[in-house]
């Protein structure tokens, strides 16, 4: 995808919102890529974790919120443990999910989960899944 960088976007409210929700300083990231190097889910992602931060820095709201990446991240905290700048990327990913979920848009509609799956998976899986994927 082509990304157009514009000064308008970098001054957007999106960046402020992510910083407020996550409590993290987005500009602390200096793009070393350690988060992406150690991410166990990177093969499933369309945008790598360090690129997500860069795009947030540039205010590219649509590209970030439409990515698969933010939903694939399962908060395993590997990147949080390893970031040399102490950026809590798990909190940033959660903030990005929350920006969508708080518009009352579910990523997974609870009603779409079949009875077969409901009877098969442990409660702990179901509740954490709905906590992460539904509003």
């Amino acid at each position: 995808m082509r990304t157009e960088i514009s000064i308008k976007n970098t001054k957007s409210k999106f960046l402020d919102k992510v910083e407020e929700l996550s409590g993290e300083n987005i500009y602390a990231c200096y793009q070393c890529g350690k988060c992406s190097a150690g991410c166990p889910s990177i093969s499933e992602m369309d945008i790598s974790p360090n690129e997500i931060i860069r795009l947030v820095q540039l205010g590219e709201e649509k590209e970030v919120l439409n990515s698969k990446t933010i939903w694939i991240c399962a908060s395993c905290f590997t990147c949080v443990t390893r970031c040399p700048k102490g950026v809590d990327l798990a909190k940033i990913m959660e903030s990005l999910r929350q920006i969508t979920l708080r518009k009352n848009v579910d990523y997974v509609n609870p009603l779409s989960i079949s009875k077969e799956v409901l009877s098969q998976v442990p409660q702990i899986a179901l509740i954490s899944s709905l906590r992460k994927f539904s509003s």
Partner: protein
Amino acid sequence: MKISYFPGCTLKTMAKNFEDSALASLSSLDIEMKEFKRWNCCGTVYSLTSDDLIHQVAPIRNLIRVKEQKDTRVVTLCSMCYNTLKRANKLVKEDSEKLDKLNNLMDREDVKYNGEVEVLHLLEILKNEVGFSQIAKKIKIPLKGLKVAPYYGCLLLRPPEVGIDDPERPTILKDFLGSVGAEAIDYPYETECCASYHTVVNVDLVVERAYDILNSAINRGAEVIVLSCPLCGFNLDNRQKEIKEKFSDFKGIPIFYFTQLLALSLGLDEKVCRFELNFVDPRPLLRSKHLIGEV
């Protein structure tokens, strides 16, 4: 020793083998696990957004129950419960403004919470209070020759401020295995995420991940895996059905909760291990090693 115990949802249903083997083992180690009254869901995942206080109510309510029942410590077995309770507790201990808000939100509680309760995982009790060397002295059936790969997953270790051991190179399960006489297998996937709750809507992702984790352990010579999280347990054990459908070379490997190995080695009745609840039946292997009796 007596300690308040938080079971959480899954230990009362699918992971009853985890709870029963733990309670029987601890009773034989003279630890009384007192399931406190009126516990509720821990929240399962810790809320990571700074303004989301409502989801801190569930974990903090549990800590209020512990305080009400005049205890200052609570122990969990499930890694997810441990992480959620521990992080919520840390949050309110460090942020008095949020603590005040939470107490105000829960204005119908008789007791206000001020961070008095300490959250512990059972492995910490075994290591620091019973002592692995003491456990070793009480072992009746050493698990000699059993090659076990420890699997830590995420939430016992990360983020580091709540982890029970080094997040990159943990040894607590290996040390535990040493105390029960088993051989710990070293392999590179012991702290890798199992894909967690993706098991509900994205089974493929879990299958890929679990295959890598299990195969790595098998290739290093592991005969079984040991863990402490019922969600990891489901993904690494029950999902072996789907792994076999996708990867024809996959042989399968039994998955244990660490408390099942503890109970076995303490010489307790095999029934407390509830092996019938393990998806991959570990009994043929245990019989071949003479660790349990013939049928």
